[in-house]
């Protein structure tokens, strides 16, 4: 295989005629075996260098803008920040958000009586987060959303609303402030990168009882 320049900006790849050792099958087969055995030995004696993450014991680190499952944040008094303005459901390209608005009798504020996201329709594009003018919907780094029935794919307020002062520091896709620095990690296959347990502790699920919108 030779590469020659035929004109400015164009190179031509000429295929080579097979040499004697190539025609004889065996030398190249042995050379190939040598190459793969080299990999085998390297991995055998240096298992830490393997590009493998032993899921689910070890979970990979995603960046702080990972677009995972959504949450609805709360104000300090425990009411949900969402004001049912329908911006997220309008911006949603997959039309997966259903909102029904209600009015708080005491404060005369709008709030969502129903807020459903169909996770099977959702394409996790983050447009809802970009559209929200109230800092109400975030995406987390939670990517483990296995379900056993289709009905469970539709998550409502019970699953979405998180308590006030919920730590949003290590959260995923959040509204972009312009000035805020967001560090990324390109963990890739995990070699030389820190690995940690699930970003969302399984023992600490969002508490549905905290929601006191009505």
């Amino acid at each position: 295989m030779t590469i020659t320049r035929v004109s400015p900006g164009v190179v031509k790849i000429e295929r080579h005629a097979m040499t004697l050792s190539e025609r004889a099958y065996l030398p190249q087969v042995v050379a190939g075996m040598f190459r793969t055995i080299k990999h085998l030995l390297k991995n055998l004696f240096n298992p830490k260098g393997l590009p493998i993450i032993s899921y689910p014991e070890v979970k990979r680190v995603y960046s702080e803008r990972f677009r995972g499952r959504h949450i609805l944040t709360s104000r300090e008094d425990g009411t949900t920040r969402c004001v049912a303005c329908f911006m997220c459901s309008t911006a949603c390209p997959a039309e997966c958000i259903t909102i029904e608005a209600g009015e708080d009798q005491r404060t005369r504020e709008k709030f969502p009586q129903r807020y459903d996201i169909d996770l099977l329709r959702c394409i996790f594009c983050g447009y809802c987060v970009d559209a929200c003018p109230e800092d109400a919907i975030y995406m987390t780094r939670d990517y483990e959303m296995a379900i056993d029935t289709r009905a469970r794919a539709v998550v409502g307020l019970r699953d979405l609303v998180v308590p006030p002062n919920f730590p949003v520091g290590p959260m995923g896709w959040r509204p972009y402030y312009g000035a805020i620095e967001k560090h990324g990690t390109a963990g890739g296959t995990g070699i030389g990168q820190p690995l940690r347990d699930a970003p969302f502790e399984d023992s600490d699920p969002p508490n549905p009882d905290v929601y006191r919108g009505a």
Partner: protein
Amino acid sequence: MSTLTKYSAIPYTGPAPTNREPYVPATVAASDARGQEIAARLGTLTLEQETGLDLPTFIVAKENIIDVLRALHDHKELAFTLPLDLFGNDYPGREKRFEIVYQLYSLQNNERVRLKVRVGEDESIPTSVNVFQAYDWYEREAWDMYGVRFDGHPNLRRILTHENFQGHPLRKDYDAAQRWLLTDQGVSTIIPKVAPQYDEALEESDFERVTLNLGPSHPATHGTLRIVATLDGETIVGADCEIGYLHRCFEKMSETHTYQQVIPYTDRLNYCSAVINNVGYCMTVEKMLGIEAPERAQHVRLMLSEFYRISDHIVCIAANLVDIGALTNYWYLFQPREEIIALAESCSGARLLPSYLRIGGLAVDVPDDFLANAQRIVTSLPKFIGEVEGLILKNRIFRERVDGVGVISREDAINFGFTGPCLRATGVAYDVRKASPYLGYETYDWDVPIAEGGDTYARFLVRFEEMRQSIRILQQAIDRGLPGGPVMVDNPYVALPPKEKVYNEMESLIYHFKLIMHGIQPPVGEQYFQVEGGNGEVGFYVVSDGTKHPYRVRARPPCFSIFEAFPKMITGQTIPDAIASLGSLNIIAGELDR
């Protein structure tokens, strides 16, 4: 004028959003003059010229279209030999509601031309299959989508929709929510046409002919493709392809969404190189708006495009090698691909389908370790590529599987409208990045690799070399560093204001609200823009009627023409050869069926 110019690098100079007048770019005069020249060269044939916003555009009477196409094709100096696209448009308000658009490219002069034929509902157009073989499938698609008949077409059946489908979905009066069920009874049997040289009467064979169905769910057809082959012994004597299994109505859905909402849909065209589709679509709409993304955004777009091109080639090469029995390479190549995808994830938050671009720039700035990670990947990539090259290129078993397999001649490749690595493997040095540079590709030092032969081996060689050239571009891009400044234009009619302003300023909140609810509203007009995708020219043709929904979005899928030529490539070969050559074409069903 924008009042949000505090972060501004590029002051807003484009049209105001309420402006329904077409935005006329500065290049229109030049392209119109060129159009007049072309019309003069054709001599006897009179063409009616229309002011195209991007390309020389002609209105052709349907009686003349074949003559005009042939004249453009055969003309010594014009030589519009490459059929790029053929598609329909529907304008129900007009007297002749349908418009069939032909787009041709001249490899010799590096220019494009657009022809439009207007027809009414009951009219038909003579078929152009005899001039451009590529238009066989394109005409079937136009018939399927709009119901425009093509007289003399050899096989005018539905292509993207199924047999039980009623009506023509891209017509404006067709309800986007309408669904049709395909039942077992509806599925038609495909009997491939036997190539003339294998005519039964002429040939003496001891074998009974067998028709073999390959796909749509078959491990060797990456994606849902169906190939029906008639075999004489082991030789394929005739083949036919059926597509449309992954048709998700991209074009119809685009018409029901806003401009910004189409971006996640374009991700899902060629899902192996999603960012490149984003770039193509966003730049088309930016051209309509008369804006340009900031330098920093363009630099990131270029880098991610090249990373995704490498990733696309990796998927193609690795999967192709698995098809022909070399599994190890898959493991070796998918490690760098994983790193590339992780890099995209660190920017956008999603791995395969980043939806990272926005019209006017990027969704957010890249993380501050972006260049360091990019450098780490670029440094390690040659090792992985070299490893695989060392394993296969000198191996006789591999050579014999791919040498002279799935050959397509240069003339056929051009006539079928090939672009990308498959065209370059026949010795034609056509690359959009060189021919009509965008994102500043002209400022980088790199080469277009070509190879001779047009067979599977040549396509392998071209892809390997292209990865090396992409690494060269990336290394230069990293060395130059990221330009400073914003990643989004400062134009409140296009870009969402920063969130802290939305929370704190009334005006920004109103702009935010207007942009989400009423969307971007480009001025009236049509625009075509092309980028070099992983497997050829990805073009987007967008028509705006001044509202928040695109009037028409047409994606030019590069592998549509390539897969169309597949029966021709495998006729006379065996099934294992067909598998080997199918993998090397890099057919992505998401893009093929849209």
